[in-house]
C-alpha cells in the first residue's frame, strides 16, 4: 500500500512539474517580447522545479526512509528555488530594461513611457491602443 502511494505521489509531482516546464517553454514561444518571455517562465521556476524537488524527496523518503538531514535539505532547497528564481527574474527584467530592449508595441498602457493621468481611471486597455508606439517589433 505504501508503495502505491509513493509511486502515485512521485508520478503526480514529477509529471506535473515536467509538464509545467514544457508549457512554460511553449508560452515563451507564444509571447512577443523579452519582458513577456521572462514573465511566462515563472511557472517553470516558481512551481515546476519545486514540484520536481518534492517528487525527488518523496522518492528518497520511500527508498531510504525518513532522515532529519534529508528533510532539512529538501526544505532549504524548496525555499531557495523560490527565492532565487524570484530574484533572478528581477535581475533579468531589470537588465532587459536597462539594456533598452524593445517593448512590444501593444504593451498598453506603458507607464515607463507615459505617466498616468487622472482621466485614465477606468479606461480599458483596448481603448488606448495606438497611442504609444514605443518600438515596432513586427
Amino acid at each position, binding site marked *: 500500500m505504501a508503495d502505491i502511494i509513493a509511486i502515485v505521489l512521485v508520478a503526480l509531482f514529477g509529471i506535473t512539474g515536467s509538464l509545467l516546464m514544457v508549457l512554460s517553454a511553449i508560452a515563451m514561444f507564444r509571447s512577443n517580447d523579452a519582458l513577456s518571455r521572462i514573465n511566462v517562465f*515563472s511557472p517553470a521556476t*516558481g512551481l515546476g522545479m519545486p514540484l520536481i524537488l518534492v517528487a525527488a524527496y518523496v522518492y528518497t523518503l520511500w527508498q531510504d526512509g525518513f532522515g532529519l538531514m534529508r528533510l532539512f535539505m529538501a526544505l532549504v532547497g524548496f525555499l531557495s528555488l523560490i527565492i532565487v528564481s524570484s*530574484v533572478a527574474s528581477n535581475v533579468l527584467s*531589470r537588465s532587459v530594461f536597462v539594456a533598452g530592449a524593445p*517593448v512590444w508595441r501593444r504593451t498598453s498602457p506603458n*507607464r515607463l513611457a507615459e505617466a498616468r493621468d487622472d482621466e485614465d481611471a477606468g*479606461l480599458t*486597455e483596448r481603448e488606448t491602443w495606438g497611442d504609444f508606439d514605443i518600438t515596432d517589433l513586427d
Partner: protein
Amino acid sequence: MINPLRLIGYCAWIGKEIVSGSLDVVSGIFKPGEYGNPMIVQLPLRCRTDVEITLMASSITITPGTLVVATAAGDDDTPPTLFVHALFGDSEDDVLEGLYDMESRLLTMTRGEAPAEIGWPAAPGSPAEGAAS
C-alpha cells in the same frame, strides 16, 4: 518582529497565487490569437522599509503573470514606486487592485496591523499618506 503565524499565512497565500497565476499562463497557450494582454503599470507603494520593498518586489515577480521591471526610490514627497509588467490583467485598474491587495496582506504580515487604505486612484507622485485621508 514578524509573527510566525502571519508569515506562514502569507506564504500559503503566495503559494495559492503562484498556482492560479500558473493556470493563467498555461490556459493562455490554448487560446487563439495574441498571447496575453501585456501592460506596464506604475505602482506607488505604501511600503517604507527596505525589507518591505524587497519582499514586495519578490512577491510580485514570483507570481506568474506579473514582473517588476523597474524601481524608483522614494523621498519625502514621493512614495517608492515599482513598475510592474502584467500579462493577464483585463485593465490597468484591475491589475493595480490585485497588487494593492497583495501589498495590504504583506504589510499586515510585517507590521502586525492592516495598513491605511490608499485613496484610489492615487495621482502619480502624491504621497500615499496624503491620499489615504
